[in-house]
């Protein structure tokens, strides 16, 4: 520990010996930017490659690739995008994905907000064990749930249904969502509600008009989280939606891979279209994402 300090001080003093303060700052800044740009490049490169492949003819994709976009631009075409709509059921799959995500988001936000309120505002026995049970279920991986869900859903006629798959997504998102809302309501001072009660408001009123508006940031974070779970889910959709017309996007994309032929262009076009909603969300709402994780603390 002392040793690392000595090294760090040595570097510091050497640097200050060589460079004046201002320039040292400059060097640091350039180094920081270099690291940032490199990291962003590594993170974005697959996205770039996906875009490039989505606008190239098949025989361009399956030959030794070139780095420079000149040949890419020369061969530019949107056949793959047309094809996913014309030859495939793409708009149906997109609709399925959106609808399933909406059902999951509405149910998860609703149930977790109510539960978060109840857990912070009402004292009852077994609360701690209830919380433990929820957190335990947060550890369940999708495959562990999807396999028995398949057996149960089949008997209940919930295979290939919007409700069936949404409930499966809720199983994954609700534990964390509930935990987040629980923690979030603890940051909402009960004093505001008490003030409302003093003025004659009922508990329902203070819940609706005081607690809910203050919990909105948490609800947004929960909604984004649930969206990510639902939009991402491959495992459960693969198992619980065997019927092609009911599939959501992730398992549907997998069907472009066939025994001797991989429809790369269509896969990449579909992937690009699937990446648009997450991209918009992450750009607009990154503060809410961080906020949610901050209060969730998980």
């Amino acid at each position, binding site marked *: 520990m002392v040793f690392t300090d000595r090294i760090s001080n040595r570097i510091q003093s050497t640097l200050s010996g060589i460079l004046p303060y201002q320039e040292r700052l400059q060097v640091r800044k350039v180094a920081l930017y270099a690291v940032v740009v490199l990291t962003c490049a590594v993170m974005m490169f*697959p996205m770039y490659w996906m875009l490039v*492949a989505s606008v190239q003819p098949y025989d361009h994709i399956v030959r030794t690739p070139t780095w420079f976009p000149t040949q890419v631009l020369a061969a530019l075409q949107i056949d793959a995008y047309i094809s996913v709509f014309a030859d495939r059921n793409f708009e149906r799959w997109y609709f399925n994905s959106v609808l399933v995500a909406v059902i999951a988001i509405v149910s998860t936000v609703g*149930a977790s907000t109510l539960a978060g309120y109840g857990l912070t505002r009402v004292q009852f026995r077994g609360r701690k064990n209830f919380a433990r049970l929820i957190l335990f279920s947060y550890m369940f991986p999708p495959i*562990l749930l999807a396999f028995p869900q398949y057996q149960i859903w089949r008997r209940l006629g919930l295979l290939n249904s919007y409700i069936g798959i949404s409930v499966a997504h809720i199983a994954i998102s*609700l534990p964390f969502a509930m935990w987040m809302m*629980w923690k979030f309501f603890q940051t909402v001072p009960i004093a505001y509600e008490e003030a409302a009660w003093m003025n004659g408001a009922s508990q329902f009123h203070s819940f609706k008009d005081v607690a809910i508006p203050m919990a909105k940031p948490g609800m947004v974070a929960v909604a984004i989280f649930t969206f990510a779970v639902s939009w*991402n889910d*491959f495992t459960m959709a693969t198992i619980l939606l065997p019927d092609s017309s009911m599939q959501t996007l992730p398992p549907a994309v997998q069907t472009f891979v066939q025994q001797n032929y991989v429809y790369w262009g269509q896969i990449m076009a579909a992937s690009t279209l699937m990446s648009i909603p997450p991209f918009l969300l992450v750009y607009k709402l*990154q503060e809410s994402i961080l906020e949610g994780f901050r209060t969730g603390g998980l």
Partner: protein
Amino acid sequence: MSTLQDTVNNWFRIPKKSWDGLLESLFGDKKALIGLTVGPAALLMLFASFLPILWALNLSLYDAGALSPTWTWVGIENYIGVLNSPSYWNAFWRSVSFGFGSVALQLVIGVGTALMLSREFRGVVLARAMIFLPYLIPTVVVGMVFRLMLNGNYGIINVFLVDIGLINQPIGWLSSGDIALPTLIVANSWKFAIFITIMVLARLQSIPNEFYEAATMNGAGPLRKFRDITLPQIKGVILLTLLLRGIWMFNKFDIIYIMTTGGPGSATTTLPIYIFEVAFLDFKLGQAGAIAGTLFAFLGAGAIVYFVGFNPAEEVGR
């Protein structure tokens, strides 16, 4: 006119009022309030999560095939069969190495990226958006793009590595048994390290700036500040992430299935892939249930460590 209007208004007002009144009286009663708030979530979790788990545990005690409609009670025979089969243990150790490898790599990348993004610089919002994006991009997209980039014949990764002189000839990253699993770990970490980044970054942002100012006043260098302020503050979140991520990566199904379907051969058949094969390709439901049962036992062990080590419910007082 006015009477019609009144009538219409009354139609809407009366139900609304009684609805409000009903909710008000329900919220006023403590028992009803508990049921109304915690009830929906509890019912959803029971139906969507706990019932399926119990179902699988029950199933694991029967000889059940997809073709025969009747289940025959066999007790722990399925467990004995599963635990004695070498392919189970091979899958188990693959799960362990996938889990450990992924968590180690993700921790390094995740914490490093979080430290970088916690600084204030121009364009930090854009950089964050670019780096967070892979976390929200569907796994199937990530898996397919990496399959394209890692292809032995036309993958860009090979072109890059040959160009910079690291390898002499193209490698089939996902088609050779020895390197398929390490390749999966790297591709998987590209996406999931961002989870750690977000968690650590959220924590870093809540460290008061005064801590650092005070340390600077006392002449602490950057390394010392990291060791004495940053590290203790993020230690908890790192330990927690290690545990949760370890469990999740041990049980990861989607990206492995998408990229290799467990192949080549069974080089990347981890336990979750093994469950899938036993349940949906061999239709040995009872045995699949038994494998799920063992996974559940590992989760239970993880949960004990979690509750003893972190005592999450205690932390949330009130």
